[in-house]
């Protein structure tokens, strides 16, 4: 790489008792409270379940996880770090170092899954596939190119799209296995990663919006156009990558709905309206409920037969009752 490494020119001691943006503290605390390590998840309980997968299913699963490893590696070693020089506050810098470290934990956790379930030969083979898969390499390259570019707000867009969109062609599979009661401990670990990525995407998207407040309308329009162009570029590549991975088992169309659903959320994290209509985002309810058990329609009071629902009356409680 010929680009000059960008670093902070001037550093002052960080004072956590003088806060410019409360969001920095809130997100720092949330990230710290969410901290986890793969060693805490009993992955070895999945060994028997792994043996019930066909060789083709095992191969697909390993390829998915090496792809996710690559993205986490990019985000940990290049992405989150590249955001530090443009941080508005020192506490924002600190949050990015936390994000970078957790991405490295994520990348390492896939290796924990591999070493628990697979042989060294199989692992090497899966990494070889990920190094050679054109669409996977392309998506990593597109993002790396923007990280090394010179536009701080575009870097945040690329980063948010990575955190909130690009992972999901991969995240689909462990949710799918989990919905069929397979690899459930692996799914538990992936859910921890999914939770982290949501906070990362939310925070980086928030900082992007703070940056937008400081620029004029023409620049805002430029960044909006850029965001949608980049999303289209990544989306087209993502569709190809999805076919590469899932055509063998006939899941590609189902995965694409999950992509659309998450593309909408990535846009919302950046402060833009959702783009894909609901007819394209109707994710398989089994996948949605593997992700969040209370995300299904049964929890929509408005669409149920509301007339038969007894409306509870508010009870007057003592104030202490509010210490949950």
């Amino acid at each position, binding site marked *: 790489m010929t680009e000059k490494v960008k670093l902070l020119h001037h550093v002052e001691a960080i004072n956590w008792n003088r806060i*410019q*943006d*409360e*969001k920095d503290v*809130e997100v720092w605390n*949330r990230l710290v*409270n*969410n901290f986890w390590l793969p060693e805490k998840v009993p992955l070895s309980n999945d060994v028997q379940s792994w043996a019930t997968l066909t060789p083709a299913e095992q191969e697909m699963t390993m390829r998915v996880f090496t792809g996710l490893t690559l993205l986490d590696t990019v985000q940990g070693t290049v992405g989150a770090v590249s955001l530090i020089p443009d941080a*508005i506050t020192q506490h924002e810098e600190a949050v990015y170092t936390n994000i970078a470290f957790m991405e490295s934990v994520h990348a390492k956790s896939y290796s924990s899954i591999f070493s628990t379930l697979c042989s060294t030969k199989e692992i090497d083979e899966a990494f070889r596939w990920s190094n050679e898969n054109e669409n996977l390499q392309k998506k990593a390259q597109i993002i790396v190119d923007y990280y090394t570019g010179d536009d701080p707000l575009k870097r945040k867009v690329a980063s948010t799209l990575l955190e909130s969109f690009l992972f999901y062609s991969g995240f689909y599979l462990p949710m799918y296995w989990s919905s069929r009661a397979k690899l459930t401990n692996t799914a538990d670990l992936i*859910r921890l990663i*999914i*939770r982290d*990525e*949501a*906070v990362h995407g*939310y925070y980086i998207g*928030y900082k992007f*919006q*703070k940056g937008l*407040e400081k620029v004029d309308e023409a620049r805002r329009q430029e960044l909006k156009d850029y965001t949608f162009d980049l999303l289209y570029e990544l989306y087209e590549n993502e569709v190809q990558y999805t076919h590469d991975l899932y055509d063998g088992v006939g899941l590609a169309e189902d995965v694409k709905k999950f992509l659309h659903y998450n593309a*909408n*959320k990535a846009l*919302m*994290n950046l*402060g833009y*309206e*959702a783009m894909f209509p*609901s007819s394209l*985002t109707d994710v398989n309810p089994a996948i*949605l409920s593997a*992700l*969040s*058990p*209370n*995300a299904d329609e049964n*929890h*929509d*009071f*408005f*669409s149920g037969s*509301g*007339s038969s*629902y007894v*409306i*509870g*009356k*508010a*009870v*007057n*409680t003592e*104030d202490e*009752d*509010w210490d*949950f």
Partner: protein
Amino acid sequence: MAATLMAEGATTYGSGAGPGSSTSASLVYFSSASENTHRFVRKLGMEAARIPLRTQDETIYARKPYVLILPTYGGESGRNSIPKQVLKFLKNEENRSLLRGVIGAGNTNFGTTYCLAADKIAAKCEVPHLYRFELMGTADDVARVKQGLEEFWKRQLKQ
């Protein structure tokens, strides 16, 4: 920068404004500086009062039955999921007695804690958790909540 944010946070959408004010809006909401929930409420186009962003500010006071919209940011194994500002608002007995339903905002990525704060309030106050949406909500979410609330208030009047 921070000052403008807080000034914006202290304003309300529609009638009634600022810490310590009373509101007869049938929607009360909390939104952090991310403004996600605020954007959703703005898209509803209904009169709504915003709970002050700064915890140290005096809360607002409901004068009529209302539905509360609030986000859950997930994490922390479900502890401390209700924003302090919302707790402060609900600690007021009259505010609590006028609550008729809750709408939760969140992110399904948070798994079991998706919209947990709304669940907790609904259970504690024995009111229905009416709807869940993610982040700033989609066009479909806006349409369903608009229609759902209209029917909900009609039924409430009959009772």
